[in-house]
């Protein structure tokens, strides 16, 4: 069903939110290096979002919530996002994807704040992240199940996203520090979440004109995600190979 009025209200709410966020970002000092090759989301935006999350981390630490609980909550929310994608509830799916990304940031911050950061926690977090991504992409695959080309794009985006993390894990296992990478997890969450939001409202706004809901924005976001994730995986592989070549034999 077409709901252009609700879509217009949603655009208004998101527009106000983005305007307020930009004001907050402008007031946040830059923290960290600003060279080339870094993530698409720059140090200022990352510092701003971490700053926003601090009161929540403090509150959760005060309540005695364990970081593992947030990790598992992120996994559940990602699976729900996948379910929402599969059911065609794109606006909800986009919001759940952003929420999952926020929980992913919160669990690490909470672990450090509570002084319980550990190799075991890092392992659980990494494994849960891979399952979470898998769950979301399965939902996207179900949504585009009648479109062979888009199904291929979803598969490529899913594979490349897993490869970005795999190359980093393998390289760090071989003693190479890996900080390069344009499309890291926050970038991928943001691209997918906003892509789904914008796609949903665009579909509802154009629906009375077209007679159907177009999902061209989500398809475009997925194509961009597949390309940048593939690029990032290749970039990391090249960086790791160069570092290992320069370093001689493996440890």
């Amino acid at each position, binding site marked *: 069903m077409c709901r252009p009025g609700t879509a217009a209200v949603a655009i208004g709410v998101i527009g106000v939110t983005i305007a307020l*966020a930009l*004001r907050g970002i402008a007031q946040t000092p830059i923290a960290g290096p600003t060279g080339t090759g870094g993530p698409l989301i720059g140090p200022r935006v990352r510092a701003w979002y971490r700053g926003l999350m*601090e009161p929540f981390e403090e509150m959760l630490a005060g309540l005695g919530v364990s970081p593992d609980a947030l990790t598992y909550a992120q996994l559940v929310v990602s699976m729900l996002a996948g379910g929402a994608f599969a059911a065609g*509830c794109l*606006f909800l799916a986009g*919001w759940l994807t952003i929420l999952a990304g926020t929980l992913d940031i919160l669990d690490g911050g909470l672990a450090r704040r509570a002084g319980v950061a550990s190799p075991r926690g890092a392992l659980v977090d990494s494994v849960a992240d891979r399952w979470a991504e898998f769950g979301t992409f399965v939902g996207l695959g179900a949504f585009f199940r009648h479109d062979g080309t888009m199904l291929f794009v979803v598969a490529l985006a899913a594979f490349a996203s897993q490869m970005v993390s795999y190359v980093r894990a393998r390289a760090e296992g071989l003693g190479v520090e890996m900080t390069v990478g344009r499309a890291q997890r926050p970038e991928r969450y943001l691209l997918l979440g906003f892509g789904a939001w914008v796609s*949903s409202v665009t579909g509802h706004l154009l629906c009375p004109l077209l007679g159907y809901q177009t999902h061209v924005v989500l398809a475009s976001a997925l194509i961009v995600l597949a390309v940048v994730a593939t690029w990032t995986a290749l970039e990391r592989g090249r960086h790791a190979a160069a570092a290992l070549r320069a370093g001689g034999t493996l440890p």
Partner: protein
Amino acid sequence: MSRPLGFLLLMLGLGLRLDSTWQLLASLLIVCGAVVSGLGLARGRAAFVPPGDTR
């Protein structure tokens, strides 16, 4: 805490309103979200500004 809670309710409500048949629940969430967000924006510190050092 009311601003993020209001935003959460608004997003859930708008999502349900756009893409589901649960219209009553959606309307309820939108109204609650709008009220809570409005109260949060009307008082207190600037929205989306971290509590730490600012420029």
